[in-house]
């Protein structure tokens, strides 16, 4: 049964989301994820996945080349730093716009096809971008090393406003606040909340409904007087702009843009984030992004010494057994865990983690309901 969401529940969700994002350093601290860099990654890849979900979750068009927009956004942002100003506002705006423009070009070509043909077209175009960025476009992208800042960059706007960074390499700063560490996180977080809010509006809007109609039945849509192509293109461009913004933020928190950001594996990662969390749900992609980044950064850092400490409460022989078993899945084995996780989630929770949560939620509700019913029953039965 489908129930339209109410204004109140949306407001609650948004408020809850905002509070969670603002308090993330404290909430995630106990699981070892409360440090700025990972928090920034959560927010940035959350934005990336939110945008991807607007395309994939709503229209069902599975793009395998979204990392191209992420990469282009990063390059645009770093070039903005180099040429104009270290202020992140300008960089973020330009990154978003460039991401959008690039998406118009790629979307215009790819959206001529649907299904897996669309996927392969996006994949091919993104791989072309990656290969060129890595090699022949090195003058623009600085190839393998990645585009970096230099002291000798012109930064014409900063110069015009008399901003001097001295002999050290500048870092992006928001009117004097450096965009590293926690300030950097809160800058991303603000945009993250904004993106979530926009995404929610799109989901609830007539436009979002049309996008879901694309996924559901394009034929009926056409004979209902709707032109499908502009809708899909708009969704593609919006999600490209989200990706461009995410790429720009990567550059803001860490001003280096590398070509590998555009590789197909990076595109695949955002697909996995979205499906893992639950495609087509509002929160799912955010959660998926968080889980994958957590694995990448925290699980990969567990070595056997850490495991020894975790299992130190066990008797020694058990401790050894546990360590040798679990060490297969962490540290250098973190890929194995991730792969297994993908399989388990898809096999048992087709709707992603969000489905898992809603199942648990429903079970809990049913249980509490039963508890409520119990005292009623006896009184009604022995009426005679």
């Amino acid at each position, binding site marked *: *049964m*489908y*129930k*339209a*969401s*109410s*204004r109140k529940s949306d407001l609650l969700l948004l408020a809850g989301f905002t509070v969670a994002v603002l308090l993330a350093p404290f909430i995630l601290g106990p699981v070892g994820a409360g440090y700025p860099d990972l928090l920034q990654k959560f927010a940035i890849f959350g934005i990336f996945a939110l945008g991807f979900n607007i395309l994939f979750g709503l229209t069902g068009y599975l793009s395998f080349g979204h990392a191209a927009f992420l990469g282009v956004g990063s390059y645009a942002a770093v070039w903005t730093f180099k040429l104009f100003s270290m202020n992140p506002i300008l960089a973020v705006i330009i990154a978003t716009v460039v991401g959008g423009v690039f998406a118009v070009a790629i979307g215009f070509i790819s959206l001529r096809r649907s299904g897996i043909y669309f996927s392969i077209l996006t994949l091919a175009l993104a791989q072309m971008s990656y290969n060129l960025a890595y090699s022949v476009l090195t003058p623009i992208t600085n190839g393998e090393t990645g585009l970096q800042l230099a002291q000798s960059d012109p930064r014409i706007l900063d110069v015009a406003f008399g901003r001097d960074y001295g002999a050290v390499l500048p870092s992006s700063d928001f009117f004097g606040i450096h965009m590293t560490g926690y300030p950097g996180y809160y800058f991303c977080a603000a945009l993250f909340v904004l993106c979530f809010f926009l995404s929610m*509006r*799109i989901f*609830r*809007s*007539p*436009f*979002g*409904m*049309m996008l*879901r*109609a694309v*996924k*559901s*039945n394009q*034929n*009926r*849509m*056409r*004979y*209902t*007087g*709707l*032109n*499908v192509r*502009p*809708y899909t293109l*708009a969704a593609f461009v919006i999600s490209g702009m989200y990706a461009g913004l995410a790429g720009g933020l990567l550059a803001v928190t860490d001003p280096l843009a590398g070509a590998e950001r555009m590789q197909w594996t990076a595109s695949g990662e955002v697909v996995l984030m979205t499906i893992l969390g639950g495609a087509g749900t509002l929160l799912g992609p955010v959660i998926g992004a968080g889980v994958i980044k957590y694995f990448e950064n925290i699980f990969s850092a567990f070595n056997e010494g850490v495991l020894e400490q975790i299992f130190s409460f066990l008797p020694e022989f058990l401790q050894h057994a546990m360590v040798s078993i679990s060490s297969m899945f962490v540290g250098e084995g973190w890929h194995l865990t991730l792969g297994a996780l993908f399989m388990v989630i898809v096999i048992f929770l087709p709707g992603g983690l969000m489905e898992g949560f809603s199942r648990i939620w429903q079970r809990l509700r049913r249980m509490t309901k039963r508890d409520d019913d119990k005292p009623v029953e006896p009184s009604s039965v022995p009426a005679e």
Partner: protein
Amino acid sequence: MSILTVENVNKRFGGLQALSNVNLQVEEGTVHAIIGPNGAGKSTLLNCFVGRLEPDTGSVVFNDVSLLGLKPHQINQVGVSRVFQTPEIFDDMSLLENVTIPALAKRDGSFKLNAWNAVRDENGIRDAAMECLADVELDGKSDELARALSRGDKRRLELAMCLVQEPKLLLLDEPTAGMSRADTNNTIELMKRIAENGMTMVVIEHDMHVVFSLAEKISVLAQGTVIAEDLPDKIKGDPRVQEAYLGGAHL
């Protein structure tokens, strides 16, 4: 007054002459049935009305607008809605949403980037949609997913989706195909009600029961040509029609 005028339409597929010199006039406010045996060219003709096929020669004019060269969504926007042989609905959306989408398409045109307002705040649209669902007696299920409906209910839903657009012409391609007797009768009743409200309809059908309970005028298509066009009672007795259907063998 004729709302749809088809003149001299020809269509070839390779060596097969699917339509030859078809002429047709649909009067406003009438139910016009197109019948004919299998392979007579009924579906080809319908596809020429809705922008799926382009006739080789001839013209299809709707309300002074030529339909040739228009895309399906443009044809819908000038006031032609259609239902399909198998109901084409938005399976994984609620009934209310299914009807809301055509209502929005009617109001906002073929594309509008309306991404800021919530659908739930579109009170006018929702009222119109609920009204249409009530017309087809599905308002009790407005929150259910469309995929769960029975075949007959899916057809009703599809009709509601067309009606909410207040089309000037409604095309129906074998509206009762694959339905049980009860569903068929229900659907006929529904279509009758719609017709009584003055809707112009073109029905393609080979179930004679349906045709004769609905149609005010019938065109008979055989081997790509209109061999007869008349009132239902006249068609019943027309030997050419019988020949076309029965091959003349057992007259």
